[in-house]
Every structure is written in C-alpha cells, then in structure tokens.
C-alpha cells in the first residue's frame, strides 16, 4: 500500500487518498475556441507513460488538497509529491 507524503499533512496511507489521473492533461483555457481534435485529445487521449508518471491525487480524508505526484508505475516508487503547481504545467512538475 502506497505511503503518500502529503506536503500539507505528512506521510499518509494510500487509503486516505483518491486518484485523479494524469497530471499533464491541461484543460484548454478557451474550450469554445478549441477545435474538435484538440478537445478530444484533452478529453480522452493519454500518454500512459510506462516509467515515471505525473499524476494527481486528492487527499480526500485529509486536507482535501489535490496533489501532484511523480511515481514510477513499474516499481510504484513515489519519486515526489508536491503541492499542485498553479497553473498546471503541461510538462509536469
């Protein structure tokens, strides 16, 4: 079971968190001016990196903050866990 080091609350068990998917999916700032292809890309297409993966988790049973993790999805090792970068960087933390 993962131990996620919440930058706000400290190291906590995975069961306190909920998963939020890839962190490098930026919502187009002006959806109405976005063409179908780019909108579909945002909605559905994912890199699904095999290796280091940037992802969002919410500390749902803690501070309720959304956090940004970099995690090795082969070994499950968490490389970093940080406050959300605002605005979300396209290329992760």
């Amino acid at each position, binding site marked *: *079971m*993962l131990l996620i080091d919440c930058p706000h609350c400290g190291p906590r068990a*995975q*069961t306190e968190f*909920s*998963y939020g*998917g*890839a962190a490098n999916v930026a919502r187009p700032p002006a959806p109405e001016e976005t063409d*179908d*292809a780019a909108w*579909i*890309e945002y*909605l*559905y*297409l*994912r*890199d*699904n990196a*095999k290796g280091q*993966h940037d*992802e969002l*988790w919410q500390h749902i049973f803690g501070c309720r903050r959304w956090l940004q993790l970099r*995690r090795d*999805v*082969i*070994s*499950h090792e968490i490389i970093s866990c940080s406050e959300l970068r605002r605005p979300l960087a396209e290329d992760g933390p």
Partner: protein
Amino acid sequence: MNRYSFASLVRHGIMGHRGWKPAWRDPEPKTNYDAVIVGGGGHGLASAYYLAKNHGLNNVAVLEKGWLGGGNTGRNTTIVRSNYLLDSNARFYEHGMKLWEGLSRDLNFNVMFSQRGVINLAHSKGQLEAFRRRGNAMRLNGIDAELLNRDDVAALVPGMDVSGDVRFPVEGGLLQPRGGTARHDAVAWGYARAADRRGVDIIQNCEVTGIRRDHAGVSGVETSRGFIASKRIGLAVAGHSTQLAAMAGVRLPIESHVLQAMVSEPVKPVLDTVVTFGAGHLYVSQSDKGELVMGGDIDGYNSFAQRGNLPVIEHVAACLLALFPQFSRLRILRTWGGIMDMTMDGSPIIGTTPVPGLFLNGGWCYGGFKATPASGWVFAHTMATGQPHALNADLCLDRFHRGRALDEKGAGPKPWAH
C-alpha cells in the same frame, strides 16, 4: 501433429507418452510476413488462427515478448458472458459466446468451457430495475437472460446468505444461464496449436521494440530478434497498447491499471455458478480444480506492475464473506495482478487506426477474456479486408472523435472508474 482424442490418449499412454509432438513449433522468424500480430495472448493467437482459417492468410507471425499466454490471458478470473446493455457490445460478445460453445472441438483442444451460469446480484429495487432493462435488452439481442428473485437466487446458489439480516440483503439478480467459465491457459494453448497447424509462426521471446513506417503506412516491426517486414501489423498487447501504438505515433484513450485476482485453497465443489456481488466489488467462481477464483476492482492508479496492494484483496475477502460467511475459514493460496488497458469509456477498441496497415485490438478493461474468440474473429476480418466487420464497426478508435463513446457504465472519461 497429433490429433487429441480419448483414443490417442490411450494409444500414447500405452507407449509411455513418448510419441507426443509439440503442440506448436518453435520457428525462427522469417524476414517477411503477410501479417504480423504483436502479442501472443488469447487475442493475438485467435486473430492469427482466424486469419488463416477464415481468410486463407497463412504467412502470418505472432510475436510474443515472453511466453505465450503469459499476459492477461494467463491471469484472469475466466468469466465468460455476454450480458451487456449496449447493443454494440451485446452483439459483439454474443458472437463470442456462440464461438465459445463450439470452441473445444473447433480447436481440438478442450478449453473446458463450462456454462454454469453467471449471476449478477441486486441489492436494491433500483439495481433490480436496471437489471430488468439490461435483461430485456439482452433478450431482444437474442441473448439468454433471466430475472431472479431472492428465492431463485437461493435455489441456484445454495449456501449463499440471502437473509434480510445482512448489511446488503440480496433482492434478486440477473442470470445468464449460458455464461460461465473456461480454462484460461487452454484457450491460449488451443489457439496456438490450431494456428500453428495452419502454418502460423508463433515466435516467443521476441519483443517488438519499434514500428517502421513509410509513406504508404507501416512496413514492419523492429524486434529483439531483428527487423521483420510486414505491411499489415495488428497490435494485441493488452496492457501495453499505448506503448506499441506510440511506436507508430498514435495516442490512445487508454490507461494501464493493475487488476488483482486470487484463489483459495482447493476444496470439493461448493459453488456451481459464477456470482457477482452488487453492493461491493467481487466476482467469484470455483475452478474445476477446486479453488475459489475471485477478483474485484482495479487498484485504481496507473500501473505496469503485475502486482497490487492489500486494500482490494481485503475488500474482496469482505464481500465474499458477506455472501458466504462459511468461507471465512478457507484460506487464500495466491494473489496476483495483471496490467489492464482501461479505456476512457470502458469498452474495447478494435479496428483500424489513423496509420494505414496498423490495426489495434486493445482496451479490454476487465472483460477481454470472454471476448477472445469474437475479438480474434473480427480482428482477423479487419486485418484481412482493411475494414471493420459489422460487429466491430462501433468499437473502432474513431468513436471517440465522433462523440460516440460506448459508456456501458455511464462513468465518464475516467478509466479507473469503469
């Protein structure tokens, strides 16, 4: 090639079983094939088999990076059903069900397809109503379905706690009598042997590391055993679909997640149907060898590790005891995981891609084992003709671009929620 039968078993038995031939050859890869299928799981092998059988394409290779059947085909809970709500899914899986019913003899390999019935339990009126809709839709698609009340469930699954005295009392359920289980490994082996017999080269320990393209489309694959040319490449690599597609520059609406499964120690027959709990995440059946085979939800985060964590296993155990408190003293023998390619709408993707000559068979989520025959059938058709079969026309990748996602659960574009 030996034909398998009771008589041949006896004949070889008398000779000490020294005369059996390999079930499949172990050929060196040729430099060129009419079609190359990446991934020696059930889907890749079935596709190769039907390419040869239905479309007369014999110069075909299946490239497997490890041992055939070692992916999700070798690690699933073996449930076969076609109890789908949406027409596009239902017709596709029902075609599969029909193929399953004749598969052992078609392949001359007993895949131990056991039509013991699949029950989805309902624990509320609302759930039962949803099952009514699903069951009616199934029936109108020519699929068997029966609505069960609590007594029916009790009669079908003796030993299940259907008393009103539990946290989630059983209200009833939806039964597909023709659903059941099959021996997972045998499916891979049976298809491999049958495809091999029709001339397909099954090449194990051969990892595809790149896909070559020219102006016309794909031209071949780079592998750990050298370049192999082919103008038709089919990807059937389950958890690795995104990686392989990316080699050809295609991004997919897929994330890889880990799904765990587990078996108990073997016991004498105690459970004759496949049961799915409706108030938590659990499906359970008993294998012919005697183990209870169980699974639940995905762990819920991207993963390429074929292993997961305790919370899901504990939840599955708790759900099992909610239905069968007497199993508390049975013991879990082994747990494992598989890498699932979860799509954004929970339905598979099978068909053409934007790259000419590149075909995709993936995104099977929890349910690709049961699809194996149908998937191979329509994928072979698509690869042979360049066009989707009527049964996978709605399952193609372009459905996302057309705003026609097939969201069976209505959970939206969160792959971990399907």
